[in-house]
């Protein structure tokens, strides 16, 4: 068979010949990114449901819908990437348990079920009300969704609340597990110097949470604008403080990890330095620049007890910057790890394709999908606390 690889990676120094065909493309950059957004959004809803932090009440249910919309699309980049996607079920039917990847479908499946259940309990009262208010096809769909349980007495609602809380409690370790697991997928690859770190799972988890909070802030502000309702200052300030705390920890851990690496100067460190100065230079600037910038901005917002438009504008900027910073971090890890040759004697440079099933357009398409789905779901099930002056159960 004669082949010429269109997108073979250029390199400097010495790399193994097979390495010029980079195995994991930009699709695998957004896989952990999307998973991370889910974990972050979910944690916010739990802060209300489990820890009773009432300032998060206005966004708690919206956070759940955001989490599930993104969760639906977590498997997409993986499927697009497989050489034989039609065989994907082989990993489900005969999971080879020593492989971290074999657990993916089970972990993800469990989490989707958990999210759907929690949403059902959190929204059941609304569904019942809508099934009575709407007629025709819509009414029938809502009736179907209520699963025949139309008791909305206070006692029954209290039970709903208890179930939602219990599920949220299970959800916290599950969200942590889901994303710590993604970190393990990379951290356990001992052949890749840039990945193989014991801190990888925890770094992935914490950065996931900050990106998810960022996403939630942006979406919440956008939705408030569209609904012509002022965004809750309490909620925004709560999000600011949560983001600040998680961001501080993630920056400390990442910083310490780099410090240790450069202090120990194990074999191959020169090539690592050239990786940071070379192929992932811009990625590193974005990752660290956004993170430190957001930390500074949040500190100002919190200390000055910002309110009104300053708070909204400051938080929107922080949210967007956080999302950019974390996507850059994912790139630096996933792509950077592969740009550092296993020979420790060379560097490869990955250029993503534009078209094609592993190209940037495919990535943009996949990333757009959860936003569309979220928009559809919120049209169908409004997550907002007050609709037409009537209080809706949390």
């Amino acid at each position, binding site marked *: 068979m004669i082949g010429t690889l269109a997108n073979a990676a250029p390199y400097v120094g010495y790399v193994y010949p097979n390495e010029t*065909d980079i195995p994991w493309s930009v699709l695998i950059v957004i896989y952990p990114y999307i998973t991370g957004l889910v974990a972050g959004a979910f944690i916010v809803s739990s802060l209300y449901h489990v820890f009773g932090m009432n300032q998060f009440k206005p966004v708690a249910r919206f956070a759940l819908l955001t989490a599930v919309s993104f969760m639906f699309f977590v498997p997409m980049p993986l499927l697009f990437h497989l050489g034989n996607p039609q065989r994907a079920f082989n990993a489900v039917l005969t999971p080879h348990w020593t492989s971290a990847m074999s657990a993916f479908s089970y972990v993800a499946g469990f989490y989707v079920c958990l999210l759907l259940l929690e949403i059902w309990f959190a929204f059941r009262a609304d569904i019942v009300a809508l099934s009575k208010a709407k007629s025709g096809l819509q009414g029938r769909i809502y009736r179907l969704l209520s699963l025949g349980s139309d008791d909305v007495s206070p006692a029954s609602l209290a039970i709903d609340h208890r179930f939602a809380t219990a599920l949220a409690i299970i959800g916290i370790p599950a969200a942590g597990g889901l994303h710590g697991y993604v970190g393990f997928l990379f951290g356990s690859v*001992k052949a890749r110097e840039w990945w193989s770190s014991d801190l990888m799972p925890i770094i992935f988890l914490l950065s996931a949470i900050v990106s998810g909070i960022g996403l939630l802030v942006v979406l919440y502000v956008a939705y408030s604008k569209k609904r012509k309702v002022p965004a809750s200052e309490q909620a925004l300030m709560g999000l600011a403080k949560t983001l600040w705390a998680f961001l501080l920890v993630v920056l400390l851990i990442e910083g310490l990890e780099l410090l240790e690496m450069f202090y120990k100067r194990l074999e191959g460190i020169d090539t690592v330095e050239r990786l940071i100065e070379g192929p992932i230079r811009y990625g590193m600037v974005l990752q660290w620049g956004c993170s430190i910038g957001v930390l500074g901005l949040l500190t100002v917002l919190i200390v000055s007890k910002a309110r009104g438009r300053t708070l909204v504008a400051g938080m929107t900027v922080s949210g967007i910057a956080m999302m950019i910073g974390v996507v850059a971090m994912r790139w630096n890890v996933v792509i950077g790890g592969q740009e550092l040759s*296993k020979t420790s004697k060379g560097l490869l440079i990955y250029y993503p394709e534009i078209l094609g099933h592993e190209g940037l357009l495919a990535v943009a398409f996949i990333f757009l999908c959860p936003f569309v789905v979220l928009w559809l779901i919120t049209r169908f099930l409004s997550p907002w606390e007050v609709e037409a002056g009537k209080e809706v159960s949390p």
Partner: protein
Amino acid sequence: MDRLDKEKMPKAANALRRNFLRTVGIGAACAGTWVSKTLPAASSPQEAPIPNIPGYDWRKHKWAFGVDATRCIGCLRCVEACKAENGVTRDAHHFRTWVERYVYLKGDDHAHVDSQSEPGNIAASGSEQAFRFDNRYQDAPVEKAFFVPKLCNHCTHPACVQVCPTGATYQTRDGVVLIDHSYCIGCQYCVQACPYGAREFNHTMGVTDKCTWCYHRITKGLQPACVEVCPVEARVFGDRNDPESPISQFIKNNRVSVLKPHTGNAPNVFYVGIDKEVS
């Protein structure tokens, strides 16, 4: 038509599928149903079913490979033979075996390293489908130089097998690491996990590929193609169960080393005549 799928390889997935059924069977038995009785009484989990290769019993062999870097002359016939024998993609980015050139110039602390797929060498051979090392060091003050053939190490603890989510990559009883091309989903996790860069992706078939020590040949009593064509016997292959085999003698009579021992992979390709720069 590709050669890859014509190879008659034992199917790992069958063993795995049976183990999976067996697990289900045990679960069912615990629940007190009849299901477990109707399932095949599979062998123990370690004991994969014996593949049906006429005249060959994989329990009787323990294959290993030797490379004598002091002999290799960098002629690259092995690379040529491997590509032809195994239908490996004919370009500069896919190899089941390759050869590295290490050159120390006077006063240098580090070697200059390249392989046959380096652009200068491709220019010298005239195409990505022919292999030659160019003469770039002809007039250079060379102090020390040698060639190192590379291939899959058929590790005792293969990282590639550990990470494969489907079991498409597996280890045989006779010590060879193989890929079931009809079962591989093409996730390339194994490509990431191999510390030696021994795995490559076949884009036409959407599956991963690598050296099999020519399993289709060695199970018929033949030598791997690269060993067969090497004009200077830099490549040695044989059965460690036989103390008189070339590989047993090679390991006994030389001080051998393996590549990247710190990975814990425990390679089964043994090297003679490499130095600190080789990894």
